[in-house]
């Protein structure tokens, strides 16, 4: 008996060996920096040392107009960025997936592959490519609008404060539409034929089969896509930086939380980097993402009905 117990405790060492590398790397590079960033938001620099300052940084961030205007501007822009993704990217993704999953559609593998291409490109490529295409100097966009008689609609969209953010959001939608399309496509394929055939016997087919049968069944996937979009959008940075630079021009009209954080903690041009204010902004981003994830986990996910086949 004791021999077996000894044998067991000896044998259990391998669990630690299996877990150790992942847990060590994950804890050291992700969890500890995360918490020390949160902690650092409560400190300020005093010469070489850091001194505890309570919520002073947050008082500056929300109370001092020089900071709070930028923060709310970035948050508002970020919200609009997210809204466009939800209203444009996800419906287009669902619609494309619904068409692609139609049984007997020819070339569907080709369409899938081609529509996914923008997603594999880096933000740098996408940002510059669209910047060139929309540029009034090159004139691809105006001459294409001219061809359909809409030349008067052309504006240097990326250079105008009122359009720049929406334009970049749409560029990002263009890039990432492949992801909701693929995930919804997978969800639609996993609906068993029997369910659809049963519905057809009851006279539900075509568009009404989509609205009444398929859409309710893929709602959990749409929920997952929404929260993934939320987290990705609220820590976005690359596209804005590649297209508009760290100053998120024109006049900060495309500034989002990621670019604001970068400018603050890393410094840019004349502005010196401030890791303590940077940590405060990162803590703000953490709060926003946490609120979003909690709303999803406790408010939305529990209410979505899941069906097991």
């Amino acid at each position, binding site marked *: 008996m004791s021999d077996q117990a000894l044998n067991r405790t000896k044998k259990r060492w*391998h*669990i630690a*060996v*299996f*877990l150790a*590398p*992942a*847990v060590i*790397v*994950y804890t050291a*590079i*992700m*969890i500890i*920096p*995360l918490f020390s*960033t949160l902690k*650092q938001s409560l400190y300020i620099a005093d010469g070489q040392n850091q001194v505890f300052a309570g919520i002073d940084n947050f008082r500056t961030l929300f109370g001092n107009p020089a900071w709070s205007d930028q923060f709310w501007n970035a948050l508002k822009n970020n919200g609009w960025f997210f809204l466009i993704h939800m209203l444009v990217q996800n419906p287009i993704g669902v619609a494309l997936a619904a*068409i*692609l999953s*139609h049984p007997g*559609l020819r070339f569907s593998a080709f*369409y*899938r*592959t*081609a*529509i*996914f*291409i*923008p997603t*594999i490109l*880096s*933000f*740098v*490529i996408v940002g*510059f*490519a*669209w910047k*060139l*295409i929309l540029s009034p100097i*090159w*004139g*691809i966009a105006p*001459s294409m609008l001219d061809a359909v008689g809409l030349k008067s609609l052309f504006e240097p969209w990326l250079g105008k404060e009122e359009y720049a953010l929406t334009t970049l959001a749409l560029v990002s939608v*263009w890039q990432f*539409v492949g992801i909701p399309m*693929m995930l919804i496509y*997978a*969800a639609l*394929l*996993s609906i068993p034929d029997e369910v659809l055939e049963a519905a057809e016997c009851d006279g539900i087919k075509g568009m009404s089969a989509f609205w009444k049968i398929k859409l309710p069944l893929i709602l959990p996937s749409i929920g997952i896509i929404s*929260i993934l979009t939320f987290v990705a959008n609220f*820590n976005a*940075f*690359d596209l804005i930086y590649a297209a508009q630079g760290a100053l998120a021009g024109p006049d900060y009209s495309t500034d989002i939380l*990621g670019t604001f954080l970068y400018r603050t903690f*890393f410094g840019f041009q004349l502005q010196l980097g401030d890791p303590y204010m940077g940590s405060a902004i*990162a803590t703000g981003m*953490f709060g926003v*993402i*946490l609120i979003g994830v909690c709303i999803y986990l406790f408010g939305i996910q529990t209410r979505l009905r899941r069906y097991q086949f």
Partner: protein
Amino acid sequence: MNKARRNWTNTIAAHAVLITYTLIALFPVFVILINSFKTRKAIFRQPLSLPDADSFSLIGYQTVIKQGDFLLYFQNSMIVTVVSLTLVLLFGAMAAFALAEYRFKGNTLMGLYLALGIMIPIRIGTVAILQMMVASGLVNTLTALILVYTAQGLPLAVFILSEFMRQVSDDLKNAGRIDGLSEYRIFFVLVLPLVRPAMATVAVFNMIPIWNDLWFPLILAPAEETKTLTLGSQVFIGQFVTDWNAVLSALSMAILPVLLLYIIFSRQLIRGITAGAVK
């Protein structure tokens, strides 16, 4: 008859929508690629026509090759991506096996702890990551990037792989145990080959964000000799912004390797994303 005709219109409508969207998706890439092979004059005169004998020119590519060290950037990106992916897969599979196979105290808690990183982006901790890398002298090394990407990829890898490891038959593992295989050999020899499709899925999910990342190379490794392809093309284009030939060629050189890899692996990639929905 009527029904057949309606089906036909539906099919045409479906193809029309898909072709339109495919054109929207491919048009910018196409425009960049064709114009990178043209003279400066032709780029502005006929931006939408294919290069012909008159307008063909490689001047942009010559500038890029002379001025930028794209081979080095490409090599850096390759090293970072391949090493990070290997570590994510190896460490992730080991942890997933421990969580899926053994009952031990704190198993669920450990699973939740590792899953935390799926929802919380690693970028939030960048300030402290940079300070840590400065303190340990890892700034401007590829090691810093590899460590960060490994940590970033692990949560989702553990989550996906442990789902798959639970499906591996117990009889097989117990047969191995009776034959006297150690737990390590059971993992490496019996289990790992069976979860290869899931490993491919995880690799695909991690590969694109690592290759395309701009944030961490910009902050942790901006030195000339550690620039990744993404950062390298960003900086190069920023410097040569008025030289349209060079900019278009640099963009094309950044697009082509990814596009080539994608065309080779697109079937696996799409199968990976839609895994579990086989019909």
